[in-house]
């Protein structure tokens, strides 16, 4: 059998005899000491071992290793050689993902054995221990989800900010740990259900079925599907990194998956109810994929030239993901607007806040508000592209985040508090029912943003030689 060379290399680096022997030895000593000071409380030992094995070893340490596996190659100058190797994207992905955390998995397995042993002791004393399959699932599948997420985010970030190694791996690790915490440790679904009920908005008891017998199955399904998508994401990003040219069908498929999931999860009985959550997710994904993209003007120009030459493969392979997400959001918006009555009744809220009242105002003219959302997004994308083509393009992401943080709510809040709600469409996608005040301001903003971007685009595509 031919072992994946990247996996084998990681194992060489990770496993030394000292480490191999020290890990179980220290665990045995620690467990013995723990039982001594805690009066042989096996239930407590089981909880601590599960926490350490899951949250600390797999969730925290494993995500760090997964993210660092790439960062240390980049900073160590070995990444170029790896990209030049004959290893394919899949071999590279799993070799790094599993290999870099191989010692983590070894330690997690020791923790798993401690959980099993303590469960066994608890059951021998007449108690009920933890089901081994569930613990194994949490450790291994949950850990893989978190590490694949951290690995993917590290791949994305290192394309943009390889020089900030610590920052990027910490960010990737944090995201990976959050995924682990939310999906595996945090009972995300139950929390959501409780929050929906507390907010007074309707919640669906069958889907967000906190405490129902199907919860474990649903939870397992959610973790499994997330795991699958995380690994696919890591693989596709690795393909891009290794200069494979590929059509963005996986991203499109993911958006379709979001759509199907949103529709099937919705308790609503009409199109606008089904599409509301997918629409919001598409909006969010448009911004996220925009920031994840390296926004290389050369690649965009290449896509435009391919379009001009009707070279469809080149054009589609160079198309940025955020455009696809925007199209999905736009189509969902049109579908929602089509299915909506002009005014939707909203259940009365207990002491609605200004933000909720703005929301009620927006859904009072849903079609116009949806159109405004799409136009405001377009404006934002143009402004962010302008920043990306500017001489300070290396700081475009930070500038873009600051812009987005300040573009909406402070001005909207000031206008609202100043008693000028009819001017809200100038700064936020909240329709008032007056076509003039709703669309003229955003039209002017769009034209200005387009002018800024086009001027910069002309400048940057006017090539100068060194």
């Amino acid at each position, binding site marked *: 059998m*031919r072992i994946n*060379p*990247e996996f*084998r*290399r990681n194992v*060489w*680096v990770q496993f030394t005899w000292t480490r191999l022997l020290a890990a179980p030895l220290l665990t045995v000593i620690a467990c013995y000491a723990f039982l001594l000071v805690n009066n042989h409380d096996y239930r407590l030992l089981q909880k601590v071992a599960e926490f350490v094995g899951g949250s600390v070893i797999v969730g925290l340490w494993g995500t760090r290793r997964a993210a660092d596996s790439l960062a240390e*190659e980049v900073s*160590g*100058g*070995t990444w*170029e*050689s*790896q*990209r*030049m*190797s*004959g*290893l*394919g994207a899949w071999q590279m992905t799993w070799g790094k993902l599993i290999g870099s955390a191989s010692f983590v998995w070894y330690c997690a397995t020791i923790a798993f054995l401690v959980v099993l042993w303590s469960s066994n002791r608890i059951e021998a004393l007449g108690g009920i221990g933890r089901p081994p399959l569930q613990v194994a699932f949490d450790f291994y599948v949950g850990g893989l989800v978190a590490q694949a997420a951290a690995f993917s985010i590290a791949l994305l970030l290192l394309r943009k900010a390889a020089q900030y190694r610590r920052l990027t791996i910490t960010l990737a690790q944090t995201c990976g740990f959050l995924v682990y915490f939310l999906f595996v440790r945090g009972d995300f679904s139950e929390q959501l259900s409780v929050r929906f009920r507390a907010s007074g908005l309707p919640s669906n008891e069958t889907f967000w079925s906190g405490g129902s017998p199907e919860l474990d199955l649903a939870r397992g399904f959610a973790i499994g599907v997330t795991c699958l998508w995380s690994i696919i994401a890591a693989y596709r990003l690795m393909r891009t990194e*290794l*200069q*494979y*040219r590929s059509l963005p069908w996986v991203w499109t498929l993911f958006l379709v998956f979001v759509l199907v999931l949103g529709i099937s999860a919705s308790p609503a009985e009409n199109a606008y109810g089904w599409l509301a959550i997918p629409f919001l997710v598409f909006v969010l994904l448009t911004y996220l994929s925009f920031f994840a993209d390296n926004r*290389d*003007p*050369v690649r965009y*120009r*290449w896509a435009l030239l391919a379009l001009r030459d009707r070279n469809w493969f080149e054009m589609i392979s160079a198309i940025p993901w955020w455009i696809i997400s925007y199209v999905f959001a736009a189509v969902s918006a049109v579908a929602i607007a089509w299915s909506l009555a002009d005014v939707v009744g909203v259940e009365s809220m207990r002491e609605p806040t200004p933000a909720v009242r703005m929301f009620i105002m927006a859904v009072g003219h849903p079609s116009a508000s949806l159109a405004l959302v799409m136009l405001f997004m377009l404006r934002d994308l143009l402004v962010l592209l302008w920043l990306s*083509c500017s001489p300070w*393009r290396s700081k475009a992401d930070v500038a873009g985040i600051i812009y987005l943080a300040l573009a909406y709510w402070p001005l909207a809040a000031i206008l609202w508090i100043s008693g000028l709600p009819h001017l809200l469409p100038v700064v936020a996608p909240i329709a008032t029912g007056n076509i003039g005040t709703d669309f003229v301001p955003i039209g002017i903003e769009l034209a200005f943003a387009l002018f800024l971007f086009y001027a910069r685009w002309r*400048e*940057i595509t006017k*090539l*100068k*030689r*060194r």
Partner: protein
Amino acid sequence: MIRVEHLIFDYPGHRALDDVSFEIAPRTITALVGPNGAGKSTLMRVCSGLERPFAGRVRLQDIDVHESPREAHQRMGYLPDFFGLYDDMTVRQCLEYRAAAQGVSKQNQCDAVDRAADRMQLTDRLNQRAGELSRGLRQRLAIAQATIHNPSFVMLDEPASGLDPEARIGLAGALKTLCAEGMTIIVSSHILAELDDYSTHILMIRDGRIVQHGPLSTLEGRIDDPATISIELAAPDARLAEILAAVPGIVVQQVDDRHATLSTGGGAATRQALLKGLVEAGLPVIDFTAEKLRLQDAYLARMRAADGEPRGGKSG
């Protein structure tokens, strides 16, 4: 061996490679030279498939490097200017890993490791950690890694940078060995004197355009024409200046009773006639050296000449 066709590569706002086309003959060592920022490293990165060009293509033995990068990588080796090694691994592990990663079969891995180590004189270091090696040895290990799969085409970006003279001589020997084994090599370097020792061809690049490409001898011959000749006599002889003045086709730069320096544009025939004249006149000539123009001077002369040339450069 490798054919580059109309390569264009842009960075935002400027063109790094501008319609670059050339073909490298097999079993040659091509010196890739040019000023800082000329596009040498970009050209190597594009040829290696690490960067995708805006237009044009690179073909290695009929494989399009950018369409089938993995296949191309199994036939090429590349050492970037800033390379790293796995410091925690032994030299043997580093080589075994690279052999496996390049698709060398398990049965042939040991042989490949031994051969690569032998070629780069690392056999006695196989069990030493890469992190413990000197700079020169690290460089050799990196080249051994890049060539362990016996690629037909190898690119080395500034391989001699930071090496001491002894290590540079070792590197030159190693490159000659690789070429003798059938590999085609492109070496980029700023140290032109050392390229003179082992290169067979030269590829000059400036502002992203090829200035000259061809055998090194062509470049030297072209600029060598006004060759400088130095003459030394065993004993002073006042007739030296007089005899030299009578020889047509030479320009005497400096002369005294015992030494002379002159330039000649007449090539071998003029030099032969000059030497014959001196000997027949009974002058005790003990040294008659036609000083070969150094690559460095030839390079500078060609680059200056390129300032006034239209686009396209020369190709030999």
